[in-house]
């Protein structure tokens, strides 16, 4: 079963995504900060990271960087933000983030993005493992 890591400092968003993805046969881990997300990545095998951009401490883009440097290099990262900006979108592109989704989002569309991200990541991994 696929496992995603949901990282957001807003409980409401974590709950919403937990309910949605758990009803679609996903295993879910959650963290309310970038720091806690790194702890999860150190102990669990995650297929995709869904993270908020703006969080106190380690933000979503820093988390994407650290996840690449410290753990499996090709976990797809999807950035979610209610405060989109050109600077952060370009930074996300340069960090090879998989997608940049603006809140409020349509969860069904987000689900399709997650499915595609995991599918593509698995395809690449099978070739290299």
């Amino acid at each position, binding site marked *: 079963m696929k496992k995603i890591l949901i990282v957001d400092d807003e409980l409401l968003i974590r709950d919403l995504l937990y309910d949605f993805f758990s009803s679609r046969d996903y295993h879910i881990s959650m963290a309310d900060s970038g720091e806690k997300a790194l702890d999860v990545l150190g102990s669990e095998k995650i297929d995709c990271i869904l993270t908020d951009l703006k969080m106190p401490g380690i933000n979503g883009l820093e988390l994407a960087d650290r996840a690449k440097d410290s753990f*499996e*290099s090709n976990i797809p990262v999807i950035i979610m933000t209610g405060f989109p900006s050109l600077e952060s979108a370009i930074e996300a*592109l340069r960090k090879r983030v998989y997608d*940049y989704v603006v809140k409020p989002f349509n969860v069904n569309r987000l689900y399709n993005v997650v499915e595609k991200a995991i599918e593509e990541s698995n395809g690449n991994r099978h070739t*290299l*493992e």
Partner: protein
Amino acid sequence: MMKEHKILVVDDELFVRELLEEYFSKLDFEVHVASAGPAALKLVAENQYKVALIDLKMADMDGIEVLQSIREMDENLIVILMTGYPTVESSVEAMRAGAYDYVIKPFRLNELKDIISRAIKEHQMRCEISDIKARVEALERRFDNVETNDRSSAKHEISKKVAVRASSSGYVKSTGSDLNMENQIERWGKLLKDGLITQQEFESNKKRILSAV
């Protein structure tokens, strides 16, 4: 004399084409230019470029459409989009289409030069990965006639070799961090013996391992 790096500049503004052609030619790049998407695609079909610098807003075919068509023709070609009209939407679209960078006009030429230098390294890495994939596919075909039981262990052996090879290129992190220096050299030696790498690649990796001590 043939120049080492061939790049393509696509922009409907003559001034931008001329500026970039002049600047990068002086830096020893072979620069080709096109004023529109269809002409650019024709050039991509006929040449082996490492990097394409493409304007986002062009009549008929915009930069994203050109990028999408290039992806189907040459998956290793690095595409950098340039725009004087940056938006969150188009930068996210560029990300989704697989752009390497999104550069805002007016730009500093020396900054663009740095981006292109990094892009050329990325191109080299993509080509190495494509080469690895091709070798794996060729090896897998060779095992097609092997009995099923043997095939799975043979594939496992290939996978291990590829993981070592890929990790050396920096594309993926090595899963064999516990390998000591001798084991690493021995593995590279085995890859050499099996014809998966050249003598030169073996020597350079051996040097790298020894210098890391």
